[in-house]
């Protein structure tokens, strides 16, 4: 048996969230007395060395000319080859959009127990336990498995990013054994939406705006973005701001948006509806900026400034520019 991690790749190489999972996978493998295996599907051969430096016992590279573009059915087939070759019984991956569909289809095909979007993993009495946050982050449950094959996708930022520089393990090449006829999807176009901005789910700092910017939404989000830029933060928004068309949906934090877990969450002009709190309540430090001293967001915040965001945000931006020498 072994503990296998799918190392997802995009145009910039391996996805950082996969290394968060790999770091934990090494602990889990050690506790189960077995090997950790990092599986790369397709992608650049140079990435194998990068993955090696994160210390898996085995790095498996599943290759085929047909794996150039991500295609779900092809990647699941390729990953199944790695699972077989590694005799893996625990299969882990980051719960990104692709990770979640790969995990679900793989789990279903293998008749595995599947714990989606888990936030923690441990080994208890020689058995894997995954912790899930369900009911939109209102209930926690330990998930135990009563079958030999176990698949878990892991919410980004659940585990710290490990340091590279480990002594690399053994590298094994596996032929994906694919033919184009096996693959159902045709990818017609891939457009990068990577604007260089920090993504919400990866961010250690998030600055968000809400309905409070309604007086001048464009100016309001410009001020939010300026503070975010100084802090190297991602820009978030409440559902109210997204529904009002102030900012695109991809910035939405909350129950019908993204669940985030930054070290610092600055909420400007966000009242703190429970649907929003469900998505950001796991933040380490929450700062609320709101004109209304009675806004529910202050009950969840560590620090609050009662004031007008159009004045407070520029003052904070100027202050942090000074402090951070920018």
């Amino acid at each position, binding site marked *: 048996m072994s503990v296998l991690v799918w190392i997802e790749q995009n145009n910039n190489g391996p996805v950082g969230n996969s290394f968060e999972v790999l770091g934990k996978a090494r602990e889990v493998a050690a506790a189960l007395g077995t090997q950790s295996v990092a599986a790369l599907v397709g992608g650049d051969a140079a990435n194998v060395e990068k993955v090696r430096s994160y210390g898996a016992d085995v790095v498996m590279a599943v290759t085929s000319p047909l794996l150039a573009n991500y295609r*779900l059915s092809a990647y699941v087939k390729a990953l199944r080859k790695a699972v077989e070759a590694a005799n893996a019984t625990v299969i882990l991956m980051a719960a990104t959009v692709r990770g979640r569909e790969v995990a*679900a289809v793989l789990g279903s095909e293998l008749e595995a127990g599947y714990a989606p979007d888990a936030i923690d993993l441990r080994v208890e009495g020689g058995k894997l336990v995954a912790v899930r946050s369900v009911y939109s982050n*209102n*209930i926690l449950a330990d998930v135990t*498995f009563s079958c030999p094959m176990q698949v878990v996708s892991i919410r980004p930022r659940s585990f710290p990013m490990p340091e590279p520089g480990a002594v690399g393990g053994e590298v094994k090449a596996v032929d994906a054994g694919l033919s184009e006829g096996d693959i*159902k999807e045709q990818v*017609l176009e891939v457009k990068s939406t990577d604007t260089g901005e920090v993504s919400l789910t990866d961010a250690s700092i998030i600055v968000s705006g809400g309905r409070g910017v309604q007086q001048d939404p464009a100016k309001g989000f410009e001020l939010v973005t300026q503070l975010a830029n100084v802090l190297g933060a991602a820009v978030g928004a409440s559902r109210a701001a997204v529904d009002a068309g102030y900012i695109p949906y991809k910035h939405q934090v909350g129950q019908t948006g993204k669940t985030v877990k930054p070290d610092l969450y600055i909420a400007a002009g966000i009242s703190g509806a429970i649907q929003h709190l469900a998505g950001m309540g796991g933040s380490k*430090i929450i700062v609320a900026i709101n004109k209304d001293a009675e806004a529910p967001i202050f009950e969840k915040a560590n*620090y609050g400034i009662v004031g007008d965001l159009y004045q407070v945000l520029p003052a*904070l931006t100027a202050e942090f520019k000074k402090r951070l020498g920018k």
Partner: protein
Amino acid sequence: MKVAVLVKQTPDTAELPKVSADDVRSGKVKATMVINPWDEFAAEEAILLGDRYDVDAVAISMGSPDAVDALKHALAMGVGAASLVDSSGLTGVDMWTTATALAAAVKAEGAELVITGKQSVDDNSGAVYAGVAARLGWPLVSAVTKVVEIAGGRITVERMVEGAQETVSVPLPAVISVGKEINEPRYPSFMGIRKASKANIPATPAASLGVASGSGKTQWTNIRKPEERKTKCVIIDGATVEEKAAKLADALLAEKVI
């Protein structure tokens, strides 16, 4: 072409914080139950596809007989028909057995396209539809933000992943899950609600679709509420906004979060 919309009945999102660990343990959640909000996007997309193509939509839900309310919501929005997979009396039904029953129901309807929301607001799994696709041997495209075209036995969609937008074409029959970007679900009209309230929704016992009681492949244990955030908010005071900003900067640097 027949399109199946898979919907689930879930607690009203405003009431999710009130869901207790006991509720979840017993499976009897004391909350107003509504159609899973993500599935409203799926129902809306099926209706919109009916405007573009020769499409008949049927909403399918698996659950207790109470789940007909979610189906009635889909009908009231304008989905043409509905069908319940009645799982009452079965225990230990997990995501894959649910998928088995729903796949059989989709087949029985003769659907060529399955549309559903990206996940439910209670289990948050996004797994059942993947299981449906795997069981039917149909291609799956998740996180769809636009149906570009249905033509020549294929469906072409746009979807969003981290850092990229993909345009993907798959042969029909197929399963797609949709995200919030795809449309704006309509509110049911008064006429729609009246029609739905009178609708006779057929129910098929899940047991007749290849599902039996079992123990499931995973078990939830130690079900609990997350720890309440016990923070006492420190309100930053100051004579000027600059002074407040400086004090907040001091505090955040001391917390080592910047």
